[in-house]
């Protein structure tokens, strides 16, 4: 059997294992979903009038929903991947991973199972939060089929990027609590991006912080695809961030994981 076939078969076994975990113990995933959903409802129903007034031009609450949802979908991914960091860290402290190391299997399949499983969970979470958004009357204004496709592609790519970073965070964390803390930037970064308010509305000294991070270009691109706003340079900045984070997370994770075999 070629090593590629072995890798594929082992990885699909590991993926089934991770999905089984998620199905058996959905509380972690569901808890993490609460954050974006609560924020969505809070900002729409409690702050919504004020926020839309701040947007000017006689915008109403539905305009703010439209503004908010693309960022929250990306935040959902960040939130889901915190769970990835926690479950990777949990897994590494379990004896079963040491057992995998003594078996004639493709070593990378352990990580592959986590990554694919996490991306699938992210997609499911995005669909769930998207459904809540649709229920409170989020509508894409004029997205074509191609733009929808691009939007999904961006979400999947973004999920892959954050997942690899989260896997690295999980691997370097000594326990699940530490992993949860180390992965907090994945929830924190969208709060200081252009998810909730335009960057122009932030204090001048803070604008670079909000601008030069992965969430803002991704949020702006998704907004452009779904709502027809200006995308500009974000159209290539967003995928560039994603690819860079994928590469960083991948090599980081591999070096930590393989380094375990000293």
């Amino acid at each position, binding site marked *: *059997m070629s090593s590629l076939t*072995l890798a594929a*078969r*082992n990885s699909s*076994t590991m993926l*089934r*294992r991770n999905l*089984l*975990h998620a199905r*058996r*113990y959905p509380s972690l995933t569901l808890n993490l979903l609460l954050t974006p959903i609560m924020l969505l409802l809070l900002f729409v129903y409690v702050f919504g009038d004020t926020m839309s007034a701040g947007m000017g031009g006689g915008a109403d609450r539905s305009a703010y929903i439209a503004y908010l949802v693309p960022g929250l979908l990306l935040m959902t991914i960040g939130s889901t991947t915190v769970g990835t960091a926690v479950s990777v860290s949990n897994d590494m402290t*379990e*004896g*079963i991973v*040491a*057992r*995998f*190391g*003594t*078996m*004639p*299997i493709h070593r990378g399949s352990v990580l592959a199972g986590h990554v694919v499983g996490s991306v699938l969970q992210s997609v499911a979470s995005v669909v769930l939060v998207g459904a809540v958004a649709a229920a409170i009357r989020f509508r894409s204004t004029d997205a074509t089929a191609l733009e929808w496709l691009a939007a999904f592609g961006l979400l999947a790519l973004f999920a892959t990027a954050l997942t690899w970073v989260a896997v690295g965070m999980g691997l370097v964390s000594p326990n699940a609590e530490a992993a949860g803390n180390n992965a907090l930037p994945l929830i924190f970064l969208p709060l200081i991006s252009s998810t909730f308010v335009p960057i122009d509305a932030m204090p001048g000294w803070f604008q670079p912080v909000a601008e030069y991070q992965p969430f803002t270009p991704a949020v702006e691109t998704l907004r452009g695809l779904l709502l027809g706003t200006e995308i500009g340079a974000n159209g290539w900045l967003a995928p560039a961030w994603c690819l860079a984070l994928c590469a960083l997370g991948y090599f980081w994770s591999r070096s930590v994981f393989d380094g375990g*075999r*000293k």
Partner: protein
Amino acid sequence: MPSSVMPTSSHGDGAQPSPTAPVPSSSPSPSPSAAPAVSAVGLRKAYGDHTVLDGVDLRIPAGSVFALLGPNGAGKTTTVQILSTLVAADGGQAQVAGHDLATAGRQVRAAIGVTGQFSAVDGLITGEENMLLMADLHLIPRREGRRVAAGLLARFGLTEAAKKPASTYSGGMKRRLDIAMTLVGGPRVIFLDEPTTGLDPRSRHNMWQIIRELVTGGVTVFLTTQYLEEADELADRVAVLNDGRIAAEGTPDELKRLVPGGHVRLRFTGPDAYRGAATALPEGARDDEALTLRVPGDGSQRALRSLLDRLDTAGVEADELTVHTPDLDDVFFALTKETAR
């Protein structure tokens, strides 16, 4: 070929030098002609400044049970980790099931099964799912995998618990599931790292029975333990690991004879008989309050007979006679005197 390693520390605090000659390296092994299941020469491993293994030699015949005996921190687990390809040695070389660790790790992994000190089961899924996971990873076809899993679960008394999450299992059940998972791939060499640590007496005896049955199938078992009793029960050969070196190696009996500490304890009810015996056996250590004498001896038939003869000659009769053979403590205190200082 590595020679059997002898006690490296000389016993120099007035105790009798060990009467038994060092165990000869040519002592019989179950199948001397066959290629050894495990052989290692000069294994070394250090973590930073801390040397864990300082030149370990091993030669384990196929189809035998080998016990690596040692206290916590002696390097037992590190040895297992190296031989099971989990960590690489800093120096030395080793073959497991005929494959070189350094160049043929995959073939080694295909031939071994490892059950670690801490149970290596996935607690979030059921016992049956754990078994099927192993079958899948060994690329066993689905139907065959179910058959193997069901068979092993039955053999280890886990059929009833098969549908429950492994995290709900008792310590003994987890350990049995652990071994059952190890057997899914049909390993030829099985490493058991402290398989009974933390188990209650019944589970421990249960585990001993399981280990004995493993060998009947021609499998080689490499087990680590802190208990001489366990090595005594199970192992064909025992090596004592101390401070990263093999301090002694041999059959359990050879090992016990290597160390002083064996004695016969004589208890008397009357002070007259006690004094008579103390005079007849001047080498005995006296405990005047308890009226007991501790007479050094290895507990062999000949030593006992001569002791009884001397008591008869003196015309005294002990009310109670117990033979004390060395336990792990004795072995360790004897073999590690120098390093302890």
